[in-house]
């Protein structure tokens, strides 16, 4: 890694650390590190401020970091793999897949599927099956724009199905699903963090094996194959990983749009490289940073107006996408 990359990453890391601390403090500078330390490692349930730090703020901050990083990584994988800067888990209908499956499981009211594990499982399954569907279409559709259109159609199709489901479902289930679809970082509990972090760790570890293939895939599938890449195996790994990253987060936080699309592009602009070792690190840091900033904005706006997470990410993400289109197409 060259020196300039190291410098950018160091700066990003420091900024991220500051934002994490600010976010943990609910947008102010008040609690000290020792209080956080106590809340996490030496928890006293009788102490109310420790309770608030541990159960309300800590999960929100951690999930913001994990969700931002995961979605950005998922987007990066898809963008490189499909050779398309406008690819991303929400654009290609992968999060719609999760939505559909979560809707099915929440609205079905079947015991297992309404539990946390059940919903996570459904979201993953939805993400995976829709990824495979996109993959299937990508064999026949060579044009980049057409593939995106297919993704959007998948999204439209699913939301129609979800609407039909909603019409026939009970009010409470409906509310649960509608709220889930707004996206939120506040629904995750301290106890769930371990599970989510574990999956994140599995995903990021697997990424090590995919750096080289991604670097080669930049040249397109055929050229990568000529350079000795086993494209079939990599294709499966990419789909599995991007579904894992997007699916887990969608399960716990709802469909969060635009992070997966915008962050990889911002990362590429910032680092000006196609070396995926650098890009993965960059997406990890920038994804976390962007989502934390979005959520910080929600915290600051809270006294004035309640904005759902998806509202903020779309407000920020949509202009970035327009900018990419103006630049590349």
């Amino acid at each position, binding site marked *: 890694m060259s020196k300039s990359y190291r410098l950018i990453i160091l700066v990003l890391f420091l900024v991220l650390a500051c934002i994490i601390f600010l976010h943990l403090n609910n947008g102010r500078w008040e609690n000290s590190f020792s209080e956080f330390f106590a809340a996490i490692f030496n928890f006293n349930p009788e102490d109310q401020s420790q309770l608030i730090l541990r159960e309300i703020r800590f999960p929100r901050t951690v999930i913001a970091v994990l969700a931002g990083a995961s979605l950005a990584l998922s987007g990066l994988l898809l963008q490189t793999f499909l050779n398309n800067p406008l690819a991303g888990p929400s654009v290609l209908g992968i999060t719609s897949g999760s939505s559909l499956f979560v809707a099915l499981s929440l609205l079905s009211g079947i015991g297992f599927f309404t539990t946390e594990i059940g919903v996570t499982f459904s979201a993953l399954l939805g993400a995976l099956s829709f990824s495979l569907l996109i993959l299937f279409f990508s064999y026949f559709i060579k044009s980049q724009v057409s593939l995106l259109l297919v993704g959007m159609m998948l999204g439209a199709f699913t939301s129609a199905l979800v609407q039909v489901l909603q019409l026939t479902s009970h009010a409470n289930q409906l509310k649960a699903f509608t709220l889930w679809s*707004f996206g939120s970082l506040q629904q995750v509990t301290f106890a769930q963090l371990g599970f989510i972090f574990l999956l994140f760790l599995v995903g990021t570890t697997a990424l090590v094996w995919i750096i080289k293939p991604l670097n080669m895939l930049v040249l397109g599938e055929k050229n990568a194959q000529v350079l000795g890449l086993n494209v079939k195996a990599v294709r499966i790994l990419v789909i599995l990983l991007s579904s894992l990253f997007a699916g887990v987060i969608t399960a716990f936080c709802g469909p969060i749009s635009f992070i997966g699309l915008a962050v990889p592009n911002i990362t590429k602009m910032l680092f000006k490289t196609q070396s995926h070792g650098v890009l993965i690190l960059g997406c990890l840091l920038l994804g976390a940073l962007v989502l934390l900033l979005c959520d910080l904005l929600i915290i600051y706006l809270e006294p004035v107006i*309640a904005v*759902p997470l998806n509202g903020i990410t779309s407000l920020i993400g949509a202009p970035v996408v327009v900018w990419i289109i103006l630049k590349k197409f």
Partner: protein
Amino acid sequence: MCLKYFFSFSCALLVLFSCNTQQKSTEKIDYGTKYAKNFNIIEQNGYTEIVILNPDTKVVEKRYALVSKNNPRLDKELVQIQIPAPSIIALGGTDIGMLDMIGLADKIKGVGNMKYIHSPVVKKGYKAGKVAEVPDFSQMNPERVVAVSKLISYSGFGTPPANEDKLAKLGVICIPNYDWREIHPLGKAEWIKLFGLLFGKEKEAQAYFSKIEKEYLALEKSGAKLTQKPTVISGQMIGDQWFMPGADSYNAYLFDKAKCDYVGKEKKGTGSYAYTLEEVIRNYQDAGIWVNPGFKSKAEMLLSNEKYKYFKAFESGEIYCYSHNINYFWERSAIEPQKVLSDLVQIFHAGEISPKKLYFYKKISE
């Protein structure tokens, strides 16, 4: 100009009649309203006029003339309704409760969704094929509605319902019911007078209203003598926000009369206010009683949001709600405010007064 004129006109009438009606005996119809702010009854020459006001702007939204037969000389602004009406489609839950109370439930020929119906009469009618399910206005097929009934009552929402013009052309009249926007519990109940008038049962409606008014006011009076003031949280998280009633709302009014310290009392206004979970935990974690969470059991609550477990009331199980019989509550709570108040007093002051059974509320199960 026109609206302005109506506005000042109706205001003047409102003041005039609410002053005049105070002394009338309960045997006769009370023209005007005593507690309700969103509608009025005016006696005109040869017919009764009902005026419905928009709860937000207090501008006249609808004027109806209750006539025995069509009168072509009446003001075009007045929608003429021939009474007694033969039947009605009651889309609002409280409408059904009110009709039920004065023996008019058999006039209901259409409802919104049978899933949300409590009334045994309506349920029986549905089984016998005499009551139809009518979809919401936006999905409504006017042609099919006409076949059910030419009168619709619905919970008003401030704007004319979709398809109202088409329905009007077919002779279907829509009446918005704003009882849910009344602050005073008796104001809600007073809307029963409107339903009585529609079916020529105004005397029965009046008698019923006077009866519950007396019971309710007596309860208010005895409530004022209570000494304890427990801290109470209410409602639930919806998404990331916890909505609690503002100080001038219907719920706050009842909480006040039932003597308690409730979250939200510091915020003026008739609406609900959103709090973050952190605020609620910080300030009200120790509240002893929790009402209206909208759940039937603690298990259900945890499934919806695991963080509920940090509240003292959750630990002790002092959580009360009407969810176990929610259709009953929605249909009847407006028309039986004395029972709602009685329940709340029981819940807040269980140790202080002699125990009585709860009507709507129930401690939620594990």
